[in-house]
C-alpha cells in the first residue's frame, strides 16, 4: 500500500495548541480514510514541531470499483399489458443498459425494475486532494487569525504544504498554497529547503535537516537535563511535566545548558525564584536531595549546542536581571507593610459591578465570621483572632510591586510578607504564622489535583473568598453555561466542595452561598443585581452539579450511586460522600439489588396511580389490611424504620442500608402475593399508602430506584 504524507508548514504554532491540533487532524484524516475506504484510522501517525503538523499513513491506491443495485420504477408502472412502457425505457437509459439487462426484483412494496451498475472507484490521489483542505480547515483552534482573506483562518500563516503518495505529489491546495515535495529544515541549523523524495523517507530527511518529532525531542531533553545536572554532585532537576510539554513544543532540535546564578538570590523565597525560572523563563530549577533550591538552572535551547558558552551567558544575564527586579520589588514592598495597604484596595477593582477589593474584603470578613461561628457551633476548634485578620489582609498583596510583576504569586506573596512583617502590636508569633498560612492558602485548591488549605482557618478564608465571588456573579446573572465560564466559577465551586469534603467541615453548601449573598445586602453592588435571576434555585442547581462532579469524577463513585445519594440530599458534602461510600459497599449484595428493583417498581406504581387519578391513603389503615403478605410488610416498616433512623442519626450508613435490605423477603412476598391496583377503591388506596410509606421512610439515605440493576 502506498505511503501517504501530509505536512502543513506553518509559522510558529503556540506551544499549548500543538498536541491537541495534531490529534484533531489525525482523527479527521483517519475518519476520512475510513469513510472513503482508503485505509484504517489506526494506521495514521502524527509528527509535529512548532512549525509543522504532519501525518503519515498507509493508504490504498484507490477505492475498489463497486457494483451497486439501482432500483427503478415498479413493474406495474413500467409495463403496460406486458409491454415495456416509457418509464421502463427511461430507466434502462438512465443506467446505461439494454432493457434485456434490466432485472426485476421483489421488495416488500412489490415488484420493481432494478439494474446492477458498476461504480468506478476514485484514486486516493483524487480523494485526498479533494477532501484534505476541508479537514485541515476543520481543526478548531483556541485562537486563530487571518492573514490574506478574512474568511480564511488558521492559527498562524501557513507557508508551505507537502502532500505525497509515495514519491508523487498529491495536488491539493490550502489557503492559496499548492502542495509540493519541499519541506523546510530548522530555521538556523538546518537547510531552509529540503526535498522529500519519498513519503516514507520523511522522518529521516527531516532529521538531516535538524528537525525531530515531539516524542524524540522529549527523550532528548530528558537525557540532556540528566546529563547537565550530573555536573553538580547530589543535585537533581525539578521534575515538571507541564514545563516539559512546553519546551518540547518550543523546539525543533533541542539541547540543554546548565547555568548558575548568584547564591545571594537564594535569600528570596523559593516560590519567587521558581516562578521566575519556570513561568517567565521556562527554566528547570535544580535542587538538592532534600528539595532545597541550588543556585543553578537548566534552559532548553532550540539549537544543537552552545560550544562557546555564549547562550549560557545570555540566559544567565536575563535571569540575573529578573531576580534583581524581584529583589528590588521585595525590598520596596517592605516600605509599606500589608497592614497599611488595606485602604489601598479601594483603588483595585474586583469586578466592575461588584466594586473594589476593599468592599470584597469587608464582605469576606463578615462571611468568614459567619462561617467560623457555624463551624464552631458544630464542635470544630478555630483559633481566635486568626480569620478576621487574615480576611482583612488577604487581598492587600494585590497592591504590591511583586504581585503586579508576578501575578501568579498572589496570595503566596501575601502569606510570605505576613510571615516577616509585624501585623499588629502584641500579636503572638503563632497567631501571626496562622494568619500568614491562611493568606498563603487562600486560592487553594486551584485545581482538583491541587491540595486544599492546610488549616481550618485557611479553609474558611478560601471558602469565604470563593463563595463571595460566586454569589456576586450569580446575583448579577453571570452564571456559567456550556463552555462559557469567564470567571472560572466552576473551578471555584469545585474548590469549595473539595475543601469542605477533605476538611470534613460541617457546612451546608446552600447555606454558605446564601450567607455570601447576605453579605451583599445594602451594598452599592446590590443595585446592579439582576431581577431576572432565581438566585437560590440557580445556586442549588449549580452546586448539585459540582457535588455530582466531585463524587463521580474526583472520588470515583458510580454515576447511579451518585444520583441515588444526591436525590436524598445534595447540600451536605461530607454526608453525601459518606452515604455514597456506604451505598457503594452494599450495592453488590443480592438483597440490596432486589430492593432497588422493588423501589423502582414502587415508584412506577405510584406514578401510574397519580397519573390515572387513583387515590393514595393518608396512612396505613391496619383494619383494611387483608392478606398476610401486606400485614407482614406493614408490621416490619415501623420496626425497621426505627432501627434505620437510629443508625442514620449516627451516620452509620452501611449498617442502616443492611437493615433496609433485610426488608427484601417481605417486599418480595408482597409483590408475589398481593395485587395493588385492585378494583376495591379502599383496599387499593390503603395498599398504595403502604408503598408510599415504604418509599418515604427508606429513601433518606439514597433513592434506591436510581440504582441501575443488571438485566432487570
Amino acid at each position: 500500500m502506498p505511503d501517504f504524507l501530509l505536512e502543513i508548514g506553518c509559522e510558529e504554532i503556540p506551544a499549548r495548541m500543538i498536541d491537541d491540533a495534531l490529534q484533531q487532524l489525525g482523527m479527521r484524516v483517519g475518519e476520512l480514510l475510513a469513510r472513503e475506504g482508503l485505509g484504517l484510522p489506526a494506521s495514521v501517525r502524527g509528527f509535529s514541531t512548532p512549525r509543522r503538523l504532519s501525518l503519515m499513513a498507509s493508504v490504498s491506491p484507490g477505492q475498489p470499483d463497486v457494483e451497486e443495485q439501482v432500483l427503478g420504477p415498479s413493474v406495474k408502472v413500467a409495463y403496460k399489458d406486458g409491454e415495456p412502457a416509457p418509464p421502463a425505457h427511461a430507466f434502462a437509459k438512465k443506467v446505461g443498459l439494454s432493457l434485456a439487462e434490466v432485472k426485476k426484483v421483489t421488495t416488500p412494496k412489490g415488484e420493481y425494475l432494478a439494474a446492477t451498475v458498476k461504480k468506478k472507484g476514485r484514486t486516493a490521489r483524487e480523494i485526498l486532494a479533494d477532501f484534505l483542505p476541508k479537514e485541515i480547515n476543520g481543526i478548531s483552534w483556541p485562537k486563530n487569525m487571518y492573514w490574506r482573506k478574512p474568511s480564511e483562518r488558521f492559527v498562524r500563516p501557513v507557508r508551505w504544504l507537502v502532500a505525497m503518495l509515495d514519491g508523487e505529489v498529491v495536488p491539493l491546495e490550502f489557503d492559496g498554497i499548492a502542495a509540493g515535495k519541499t519541506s523546510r529544515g530548522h530555521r538556523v541549523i538546518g537547510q531552509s529547503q529540503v526535498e522529500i523524495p519519498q513519503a516514507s523517507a520523511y522522518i529521516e530527511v527531516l532529521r538531516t535537516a535538524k528537525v525531530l518529532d515531539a516524542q524524540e525531542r522529549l527523550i532528548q531533553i530528558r537525557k540532556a537535563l540528566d546529563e547537565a545536572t550530573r555536573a553538580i554532585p547530589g543535585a537533581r532537576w525539578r521534575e515538571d511535566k507541564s514545563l516539559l510539554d512546553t519546551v518540547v513544543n518550543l523546539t525543533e532540535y533541542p539541547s540543554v545548558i546548565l547555568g548558575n546564578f548568584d547564591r545571594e538570590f537564594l535569600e528570596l523565597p523559593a516560590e519567587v525564584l521558581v516562578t521566575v525560572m519556570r513561568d517567565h523563563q521556562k527554566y528547570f530549577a535544580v535542587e538538592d536531595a532534600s528539595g532545597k533550591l541550588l543556585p543553578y538552572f537548566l534552559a532548553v535551547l532550540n539549537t544543537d549546542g552552545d560550544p562557546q558558552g555564549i547562550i549560557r551567558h545570555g540566559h544567565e544575564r536575563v535571569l540575573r536581571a529578573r531576580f534583581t527586579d524581584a529583589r528590588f520589588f521585595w525590598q520596596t514592598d517592605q516600605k509599606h507593610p500589608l497592614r497599611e495597604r488595606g485602604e489601598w484596595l479601594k483603588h483595585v477593582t474586583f469586578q466592575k459591578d461588584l466594586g473594589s477589593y476593599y468592599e470584597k474584603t469587608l464582605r469576606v470578613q463578615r462571611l468568614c465570621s459567619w462561617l467560623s461561628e457555624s463551624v464552631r457551633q458544630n464542635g470544630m476548634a478555630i483559633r481566635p483572632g486568626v480569620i478576621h485578620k487574615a480576611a482583612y489582609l488577604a487581598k492587600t498583596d494585590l497592591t504590591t510591586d511583586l504581585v503586579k510583576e508576578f501575578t501568579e504569586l498572589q496570595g503566596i506573596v501575601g502569606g510570605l510578607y505576613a510571615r516577616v512583617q509585624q501585623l499588629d502590636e502584641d500579636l503572638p508569633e503563632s497567631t501571626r504564622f496562622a494568619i500568614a498560612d491562611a493568606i498563603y492558602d487562600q486560592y487553594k485548591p486551584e485545581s482538583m489535583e491541587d491540595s486544599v488549605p492546610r488549616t481550618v482557618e485557611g479553609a474558611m478564608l478560601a471558602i469565604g473568598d470563593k463563595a463571595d465571588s460566586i454569589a456576586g456573579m450569580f446575583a448579577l446573572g453571570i452564571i456559567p453555561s456550556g463552555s462559557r465560564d469567564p470567571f472560572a466559577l466552576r473551578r471555584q465551586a469545585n474548590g469549595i466542595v473539595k475543601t469542605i469534603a477533605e476538611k470534613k467541615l460541617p457546612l451546608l453548601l446552600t447555606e454558605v452561598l446564601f450567607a455570601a449573598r447576605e453579605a451583599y445586602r445594602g451594598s452599592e453592588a446590590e443595585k446592579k443585581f439582576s431581577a431576572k435571576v432565581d438566585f437560590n434555585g440557580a445556586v442549588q442547581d449549580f452546586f448539585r452539579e459540582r457535588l455530582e462532579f466531585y463524587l463521580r469524577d474526583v472520588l470515583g463513585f458510580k454515576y447511579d450511586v451518585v444520583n441515588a445519594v444526591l436525590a436524598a440530599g445534595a447540600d451536605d458534602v461530607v454526608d453525601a460522600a459518606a452515604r455514597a461510600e456506604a451505598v457503594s459497599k452494599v450495592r453488590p449484595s443480592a438483597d440490596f439489588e432486589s430492593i432497588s428493583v422493588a423501589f423502582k417498581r414502587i415508584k412506577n406504581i405510584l406514578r401510574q396511580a397519580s397519573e390515572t387519578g387513583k387515590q393514595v391513603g393518608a396512612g396505613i389503615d391496619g383494619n383494611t389490611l387483608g392478606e398476610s403478605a401486606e400485614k407482614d410488610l406493614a408490621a416490619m416498616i415501623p420496626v425497621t424504620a426505627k432501627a434505620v433512623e437510629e443508625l442514620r442519626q449516627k451516620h452509620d450508613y452501611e449498617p442502616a442500608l443492611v437493615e433496609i435490605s433485610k426488608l427484601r423477603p417481605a417486599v418480595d412476598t408482597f409483590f408475589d402475593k398481593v395485587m395493588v391496583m385492585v378494583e376495591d377503591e379502599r383496599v387499593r388506596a390503603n395498599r398504595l399508602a403502604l408503598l408510599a410509606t415504604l418509599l418515604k421512610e427508606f429513601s433518606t439515605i439514597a433513592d434506591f430506584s436510581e440504582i441501575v440493576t443488571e438485566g432487570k
Partner: protein
Amino acid sequence: MNQTKPNPPTFQDLILRLQTFWADRGCVLQQPYDVEVGAGTMAPETFLRVLGPQPYKVAYVQPSRRPADGRYGENPNRLFKHLQLQVILKPPPENVQELYLESLGAMGIDLRQHDIKFEEDNWESPTLGAWGIGWQVMLDGLEITQFTYFQQCGGVDLDPISAELTYGLERIAAFLQDVDSIYDIVWARDPETGRVTTYGDVRLADELQFSVYNFEAADVERTWKHFELCEAECKGLLEKYAALEKGQNPRPVSPKNGETRTGHPDKKRFPLLGAYDLCLKCSHLFNILDARGAISVTERVGVIARVRALAVGIAKAWVDQQREAPTESEDEEPAGRKEKAKKEVAPAVS
C-alpha cells in the same frame, strides 16, 4: 565578557543599523511622533496607516511614555520612557519572519551562535480597540521584539492586515553591549576622542524628574481638567464630522458628468488628525492620573471606555474620509475594490 561581540554597536549605531536595514527593504523612515504616546502603535503612522486598503511600509523610533513604569532611575531594568523601533509592513510579505531574522543579523547578531524562539504572545490594547496575534521573540531567554499580525484597529477589521515589529531598543542594546543596567549602555562614542556618552548621561535626569512629576507632583485637579478639555474638543470634532456625513447628499451624482462618488467636498480637509492628537493626549493624561493614584475603581473602567470611544470614532471616521477623499492612486482602482473597502466600517465581531 563576551567573545563574540568585540565591537558591539552603540545605542545610536543600533538605531542607525536597523533604520538602514528597513530603509533598504522599502520602508519610509518616519521620525518619532511629537505627541506623548505609550507605544509606537499609537503613533498615527501605525494606528491610522493600518486602516483601509493602501499598502504601506514604514519604520520609526518612538519614545514611549508609561508614567506608572517609572522607578526614579533606581531600577536598572525599568523606565518611564523607553524607545521602541517600530516597523509596519502592510500587507506583510510572505517571508516576513525571515526578513525579521535578517534584521537581527544587521544588528550584529549571528543566529548560529544564539538560541531564538518565537513564543506565543497576543497583543491587545483596550484603549485603542486594537488587537493582534503574534509572538514575543526570545533571544537567549530575552524578549527582544514583539511581533504582531494586526487583526483589528479602532474596532475596524483590517483588510489587508499589517505586520508590526516592535524592537525594544534598550534591552537589545544592553544585550549586545553585555551590561546589566540600562543606564550603562553606551549611547555614543566620539570617534575622535573616544569619549563615551552613556544612556544614563542622556536620560537619567528624565527618569528621576518625570517619576517625581508623575507620582508626586502632577496636580490631579488640573490634569483632570486637561483631560476633559481634550476629550471635549475631540468629541466636538467627531460630532462635526458626523454632521458632515449626515448632511451629505446621498444621491449619487450622475455618472454622465464623469463623477461617480457621493463625496462631500469638505471631508478631505476635515482635521481628523487633529482629533487623533487630542485622543492621544487623553490617553497620556489618563496614564498620569493612574500613576498618581487618582483614578477610583468606578472611574477607571469608565475612563478607559471614554478614550476608547474617541479612538474608535476616529478610526471609523478615518476609514470613511480615506474613501471619500481618495488619493490619486486609489482613483485608478476598479470599483469593486471600493465596494469591498466600504464593508470595513461595519462593527467588528469580537
